[in-house]
């Protein structure tokens, strides 16, 4: 089975298509799935299946693109009724927790395979501003914390060109927003970090 997959991959990579040359552009529309990691899991430890983004990339040089990305994803989970003990008391309640994330970041990518390859792999880095709003819904009350923070998003992207104008992509990346506040009863400040898996379509311009 592995042999066939390898043969197919090499064949696809060898088919020539319209190359991403200097001066060309690309518009991407993506669906996101994400998984909290690190300290983020202390606030909300559930994967997110609600996210989308749009990217525009401009090839400043052959194989090297820069661009902008923005989008939205939301993490959410209902925590069943439980008792939480603190220093001189306790609370029994149901919680709904939400984290809304809107990145507005600059991205830079370098294509690792040949310019005219049908299957393309690129490595890149995004950095910029992230709007993060955390909510904890408790009974008839809502605790919120919102902020703009600086974030980084290193990523690898696999693209498959169907023709010279359209293709599909898959892109795993790790996103970190520094110094976030938590919308819970504890006065904590932690980074917001999560794995982000993008599935999308792109259109060459």
């Amino acid at each position, binding site marked *: 089975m592995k042999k066939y997959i390898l043969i197919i991959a090499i064949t696809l990579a060898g088919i020539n298509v319209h190359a991403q040359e200097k001066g060309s552009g690309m518009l991407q529309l993506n669906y996101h799935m994400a998984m909290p990691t690190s300290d983020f899991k202390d606030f909300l430890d559930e994967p997110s299946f609600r996210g989308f983004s749009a990217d525009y990339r401009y090839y400043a040089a052959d194989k090297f693109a820069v661009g902008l990305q923005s989008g939205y994803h939301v993490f959410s989970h209902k925590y069943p*009724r439980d008792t939480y003990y603190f220093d001189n*008391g*306790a609370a029994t309640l149901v919680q*709904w927790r*939400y984290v809304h994330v809107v990145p507005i970041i600059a991205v830079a990518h370098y294509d690792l395979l040949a310019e005219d390859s049908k299957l393309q792999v690129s490595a890149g880095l995004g950095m910029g501003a992230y709007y993060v709003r955390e909510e904890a819904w408790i*009974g008839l009350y809502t605790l919120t914390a919102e902020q703009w923070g600086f974030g980084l998003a290193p990523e690898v992207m696999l693209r498959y060109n169907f023709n010279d104008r359209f293709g599909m992509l898959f892109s795993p990346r790790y996103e970190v927003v520094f110094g976030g506040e938590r919308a819970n009863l504890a006065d904590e400040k932690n980074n917001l970090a999560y794995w982000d898996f993008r599935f999308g379509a792109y259109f060459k311009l």
Partner: protein
Amino acid sequence: MTFKPKFILFLSAALALFGIGGCNLYPDSETRVEDLDITLTHYDKENDFMQNQTYSIVDEVVEIDSDTNNAPSPVANSDLIIQQIEANMAALGYTKVNDNQDPDLRVVATATENTQYFIITTMITGIGMVVVGMAMAAGGVLLLLLSACYPVVESYTSGTLIMQMAQYKDTAPGDTIKMVWTGVVNGLLDEDTQANLKTRIKSSIDEAFEQSPYLKVE
């Protein structure tokens, strides 16, 4: 290879299905009214609860009104609340006595009620959709928008039960009474049947005492 619009349509539909068509994001109509109940307790860590064995309790739970001219009046489930507090105190090992028997603790229970009003924009359903359909048939976009969305004033009423214990023994008239334990129960009063409301009140009072094992008589 040719460009296939149908494939993109399928992709868009799939993304919409996975991304948007799942469960509702915020608490919705499937949320049970008891999910919104909160039980909180707070106690004085410096107080020696182990010395207590007896308590007295108020005869009824009165409502605290923001208008101080109103005379305190007992709440609808006053007897039920008092009985449930007494049952929990007995389970912890306390003996109920009268005020004139110098009890170790004095238990007081009060309640508040609050109605909140808010405006939401809602969509017409049912027969209203016929109006929307007529508007669409007439081609009136403005009429369509006016028909489909309109503001509605909604309200909900919540109630809060406040239970307090004071270290009472050997206090004289005029002395400052030290509150050593507070239990607060908060939840919706409307949107529920009377039977379920009584069940919620009892279970919430039980939760407050379950949170407080330090009250147990040694």
